[in-house]
């Protein structure tokens, strides 16, 4: 029997990344100075970035597809890894977690995300998810001598495993009802059978697993603890990457496989979205640790992004993607500041920052207002885009709920600004700037403003 060799071009980005990751593992033994690896990682990511456009098409019997959608998300993943590496360079040394594996794991996990974005078959989806998740678990616990880091890892791991078990159960039921794991075939199958309670159950199980990945309420509870415990750079990585991947698969699965169960999953997601925005914003107000605060804020943002999915239109999906991209930049920026400061974990550490470090304070101010969604920053464009899609789809009331919550969110972002500008300085804030960190900050702040003022730079806005 002859085995046709599959066309690999669509998978070039993944392949490059994989090879790079494995190579890094070996180089790790050669180089004492891990900075080299970091730069390799960045350059590899850059190369992959370059290959993204020419990787269109589908392969492996259609279980792997590389289209605009997946490419866009891969773009986000790559930006994510680049920025993360940039900000983590000196930081992980400070944290005595300067292992070469750090970078290769990050690459692997990014590969996992890319697979998720490109998956058109539950098997790929599952494997990609596990690939991403497992490496993220390890990254979260990479400060192995630090109890907080361990705790973060164990919590993340156990709950993650639990959720993926749920996912599998859902998949198995789905498989039983359709004899296939391929999205398009499933969709076709459901066309005939229509939705039965069993299928709904499967859908819910899958939705729950994804909600866990994007930290949507009530499957969010791991997020704050993990974000706080993990090394800040990893937190930054996790707050964007897996979330984006989660949204990528949600956007894919629900729009293809569960197409004609839209009524069901919309109602499910609306509930989740409202809860997410509410809990995220309200709990963020009560925080004193800025990483936890950002964790809750990222939960809340997941809520807004879900609205894009709920809209159920192509426009909504693209709004979600745009938001994801914007979120990546502003969130990275905020975390970069947290890393930049020697002592920046508590919100109170920011008191009087504008006196001692005016520039840092100004940057943080920009990111905070962007997260709030005040023009002319990118955050506003994101929200605006989402709301527009939502209202277009006829969910005006939901939009109103959302804007109210975004107004509430202003309260805790303003707290940081207040501490920086309106409180007296407690101690001269020490910072440890590195060129790479500054570069990351520059990129993020630039993007925040550029997207805020000329949103057309984001590819999808022209489609909307």
């Amino acid at each position, binding site marked *: 029997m002859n085995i046709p060799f599959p066309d690999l071009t669509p998978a070039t980005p993944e392949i490059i990344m994989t090879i790079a990751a494995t190579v890094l593992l070996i180089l790790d033994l050669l180089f004492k100075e891990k900075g080299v690896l970091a730069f390799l990682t960045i350059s590899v990511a850059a190369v992959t970035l370059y290959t993204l456009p020419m990787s269109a098409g589908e392969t492996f019997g259609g279980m792997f597809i590389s289209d605009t959608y997946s490419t866009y998300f891969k773009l986000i993943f790559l930006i994510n890894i680049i920025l993360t590496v940039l900000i983590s360079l000196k930081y992980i040394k400070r944290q005595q977690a300067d292992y070469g594996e750090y970078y290769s794991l990050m690459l692997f996990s990014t590969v996992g995300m890319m697979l998720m974005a490109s998956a058109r078959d539950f098997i790929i989806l599952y494997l990609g998810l596990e690939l991403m998740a497992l490496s993220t678990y390890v990254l979260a616990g990479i400060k192995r001598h630090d109890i907080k880091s361990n705790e973060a890892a164990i919590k993340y791991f*156990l*709950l993650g495993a*639990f959720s993926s078990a749920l996912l599998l159960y859902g998949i198995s039921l789905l498989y039983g009802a359709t004899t296939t794991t391929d999205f398009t075939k499933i969709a076709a199958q459901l066309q005939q059978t229509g939705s039965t309670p069993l299928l709904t159950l499967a859908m*819910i199980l899958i939705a729950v697993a994804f909600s*866990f990945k994007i930290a949507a309420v*009530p499957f969010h509870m791991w997020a704050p603890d993990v974000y706080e415990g993990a090394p800040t750079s990893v937190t930054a990585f996790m707050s964007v990457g897996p979330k984006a991947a989660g949204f990528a698969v949600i956007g894919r699965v629900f729009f293809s496989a569960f197409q004609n169960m839209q009524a069901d999953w919309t109602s*499910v997601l609306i509930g*989740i979205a409202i809860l997410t925005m509410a809990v995220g914003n*309200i709990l963020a107000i*009560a925080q004193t640790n800025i990483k936890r605060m950002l964790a809750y804020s990222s939960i809340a943002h997941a809520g807004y992004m879900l609205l894009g999915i709920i809209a159920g239109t192509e426009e909504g999906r693209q709004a979600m993607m745009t938001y994801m991209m914007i979120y990546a930049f502003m969130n990275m920026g905020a975390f970069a500041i947290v890393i930049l400061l020697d002592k920046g974990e508590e919100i109170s550490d920011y008191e009087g920052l504008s006196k001692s470090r005016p520039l840092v304070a100004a940057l943080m101010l920009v990111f905070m207002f962007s997260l709030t969604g005040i023009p002319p920053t990118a955050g506003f464009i994101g929200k605006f885009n989402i709301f527009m899609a939502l209202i277009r789809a006829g969910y005006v009331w939901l939009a109103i709920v959302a804007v109210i919550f975004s107004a509430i969110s202003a309260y805790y972002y303003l707290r940081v600004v207040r501490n920086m500008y309106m409180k007296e300085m407690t101690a001269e804030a020490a910072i440890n700037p590195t060129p790479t960190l500054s570069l990351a900050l520059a990129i993020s702040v630039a993007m925040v403003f550029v997207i805020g003022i000329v949103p057309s730079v984001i590819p999808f806005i022209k489609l909307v």
Partner: protein
Amino acid sequence: MDKYTLIPLLPLAAFCINILFGRFLIKDRAHWIAISAVLGSFIIAVMTFGEVAQGKTVNQDVYSWIVSGNFKVTIGFLIDQLTAIMLIVVTSVSLLVHIYSVGYMHGDPGYYRFFSYLSLFTFSMLMLVMGNNLLQLYFGWEAVGLCSYFLIGFWYEKKSASDAGKKAFIVNRFGDFGFGIGVMMIFLFLGSVHYADIFGTVGTLQGQTIQMFGYNVDLITLIALLLFCGAVGKSAQIPLHVWLPDAMEGPTPVSALIHAATMVTAGVFMVARFNPLFSLSPIAMNVVAITGAVTSLFAATIALVQNDIKRIVAYSTVSQLGYMFLACGVGAYGAGVFHLYTHAYFKALLFLGAGSVMHAMAGELDIQKMGGLKKYMPVTYWTFLIASLSIAGVPGLAGFFSKDEILWMAYNGGTVGRIVWAMGTVVAALTAFYSFRIIFLAFHGKFRGTHEQEHHLHESPKSMTIPLMILAIGAIAAGWVGIPELLGSNIGVGNWVAHFFEPVLGHPEVHGTHEEEWMVIGISIAAAFGGIFFAWVFYALKPEIPRTLAATFKGIYTTLWNKYYIDELYDFIIVRPTKWAATNVLMAVTDGGIIEGIVNGVPKAIGNFGERLRKLQSGHLQHYAVSMAIGLFVIMTLVLIASAGK
């Protein structure tokens, strides 16, 4: 720019110069600028009067002030007989007061300020009387109010002074409230605020009614009464008279100029100006007449018992103003304005005389502490006496003619007329009484003050006495232009002023007989002399009588002494409640309690809720897992129930 424009402009210029440079450059030379300016206006005014006497009237616009849609207002001048006479009164009295002040205000730190205010006032008053539209009238109206505010509170370090100024302004605002609405009504229904248009079209409103609180109110009456509100405030009629007595806190020349001769008569002027409107509404007329009569009686009674010389004169002013309204009320606008004009002189004279007395007594105002001033300050005494005779209505003097004219007209004015005539006559008697009460208490008998006061007594400087004398001439002769036909026909002079006013103010037809007229004149003369006689008996012959009377009619006496407790009443029903509401209701309850309660409560509630939610985030893995499972279970049940439903 023609000369009419110059009339108000000169004082304005003086004001600007003094207020800008007075402080550093001009200092105590301020009066030169002010006086020369007023003198200029006075001369032009006289010339204008001459022209008007030839029958020339002017109605011209200077520039377009406000244009908003169909609402067009100009700054412009209407100069007719009424205006002319007012011009004379204002400029002449103002001029004399200016001169008088040179001596009176000598050495006061605010010297330049005083004169700039006087100029500003003159300007405003002239704008008021010369305006050819309601809004300009309103402009002057408020501006003179402002000046009186400044001048009453001239010595602002004194709380009482600044209080009085504030009170004057705010009380006037109550009147202006009605006045303003009146203006708007007029615009609303006549489409213009220019006199010419108004009087041209006012007839069309006759019989029209407007729905108000479910009642149909006659439109003209409503408008007239609203305008009258303004007059009531400005001319200190009941119930808005309360500010005038307090206004005596200001320097005496101010009292003479503003609170006797000119500003307070603006109300009368306005009513007279609007006679075409008022005449169309009998009700309004009666209201005016009765208000006037009641006020004059009311004020006169208070004046009986006061001891503060300026307050007595002030109340007499209120009472005389009441007289003028009485006249207007019975349709005798001419008589009203005539009285306004004579009153200007003798009342100004009274005030300036009082001022001269104060000057001598080093600020002492209590007539009980005076006495026998006659020999110390003869000029003051004689002029004051002339003024008192004039106001008392002793035949031959100015006051007599105007007052008699009014009473006679009132007598002819139907039932209401008769009533007010009766009241007027009583008032005449009272007036004579309290005027001479001052004469006898202050100038006769022996001095009752302290020794240093006695030592200090002296006649006032020339700059003060000369205006007194000039005014005295006015107080005697001003009335001769209005000798009633009855008397005049014998000596060959007609009632010139009546004919003069005919074109603007008209002339009510008189159907009383000569006998009745004689009777009226006789009664008023009797009243005058009766008043004087009793005053002599009470305060020169048997000084103990007043005390016994006061003792016997204690209640009445104290009521009068306390001015019928009106101030207290207002304080109790208006001032206190408002302030109380401001602090204890609006601030405490509405703003502080309800609104702020919500504004601050919601975030607090959210915060607390957040804190409670935090407890759920316990850090226990199991709890997290359980929450996931619960979530899963809930979603499943809900969705399945829903899908089972459909």
